[in-house]
């Protein structure tokens, strides 16, 4: 049984179609959505959003936002989204390196926290991008 997923940002539409399963990263942990889910609203943390449609998996990097889940539909209002194939691994790596370098210098607590977050974000980005290059089967989703 499929349900309707809309994955949107303020500036573009990434997905509006029937899908079978979605996994997203809420602020209180990851959650999976199937048809008939209890009405549910969650803030999203930076992380991966996995969509399964039939046998195919699609992966997105979501930087945060809000998800509304209804029994027959799900709306993700994301701040920014990158499709797995859009992620610039080089850019992510340099950003991570810069943040790491900045961390090695003496800086304020607030700055330290933003850089740590930055590193975390870039790590998620890189892991999504790298996974796309390795072979991947629909069954893998249950292991995560």
């Amino acid at each position: 049984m499929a349900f309707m997923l809309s994955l949107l940002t303020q500036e573009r539409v990434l997905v509006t179609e029937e899908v079978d399963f979605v996994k997203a990263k809420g602020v209180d942990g990851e959650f999976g959505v199937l048809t008939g889910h209890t009405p549910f609203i969650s803030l999203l943390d930076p992380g991966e959003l996995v969509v399964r449609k039939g046998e195919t998996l699609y992966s997105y990097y979501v930087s945060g936002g809000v998800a509304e889940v209804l029994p027959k539909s799900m709306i993700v209002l994301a701040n920014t989204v990158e499709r797995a194939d859009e992620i610039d691994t080089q850019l992510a790596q340099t950003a991570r390196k810069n943040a790491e370098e900045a961390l090695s210098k003496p800086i304020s607590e607030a700055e330290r926290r933003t850089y740590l977050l930055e590193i975390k974000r870039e790590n998620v980005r890189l892991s999504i991008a790298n996974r796309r290059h390795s072979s991947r089967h629909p069954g893998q989703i249950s292991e995560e």
Partner: protein
Amino acid sequence: MPSLRSIRGRIKSVKNTRQITKAMEMVASAKMRKAQARVRDTRPYAEKIRELMNRLSAIESHRPNPFFQVRPAATVGIILVSTDRGLCGPINANVFKMVTRFMAERPNVKFEFVVVGKKGQDFIRRGGYKAVGSVTGIKDRGQIEEILPATQVAIEEFTNGRWDEAWVFYTEFVSTLSQKARSEQLLPIVPEKGADGLKKPSPFLGEYLYEPDTAEILDVLIPRYFETLVFQRVMENFASEYSARMMAMRNATSNAKEVIYEMTLIYNKLRQAAITREISEIASGADAVQQG
């Protein structure tokens, strides 16, 4: 009867005008295509967040939140979206007319404006209204950050209780040939009413589960809702502006063509008449010589 020379001069100047309007038409149509695509891209998010907020506003337990509370309207805030430049048909004038009518219908209410676009600033100045904030020079491919100064002022005014309602006035893009002035109440957020004035049946009327909790989600959602809607309306206004300008310039170009055609006709007739007159003068002169 105008002289040949003065007509030649006028034809030339109208031809120049035609070239300018033609160029403006082409620039506007190129920008229009991009702006229309942008409207298509930004509409779904705005619509969905609006629907979501309407659904949330219908839930009883959210009522205490000030953004859902309907207060008697003493001061109404208006976000007026206009263009920076003119020569775009009647779209600004239509929006201003709508604002004027809106204010006339509410005689005991004070109005304050947040203005987007230079034309709107002119309107405020002419009418002697009060503007608490304004933004100009927004780019048509702009990011949402560019309008944040305007929305932040508006949200602040509402939160401090100075504004009891917040509205947005803009020109909705319907099609290349049609743009419509529209007004829309953004705050407080009230359950959407159908065309018959009754509550629309919502697809879901119960309570949600919230993660982390209602208050935190509303704190994130409400500013986002407001910004997104204003941003999207600004994008609508751009698409309307370019469409209207393209049509206005296309009309101007075809008018210029017509004028050139008519003036060329008059010019040729005059020229012909002058030649005929000269020939008949020469002929009658020759006649006189022969007879003499």
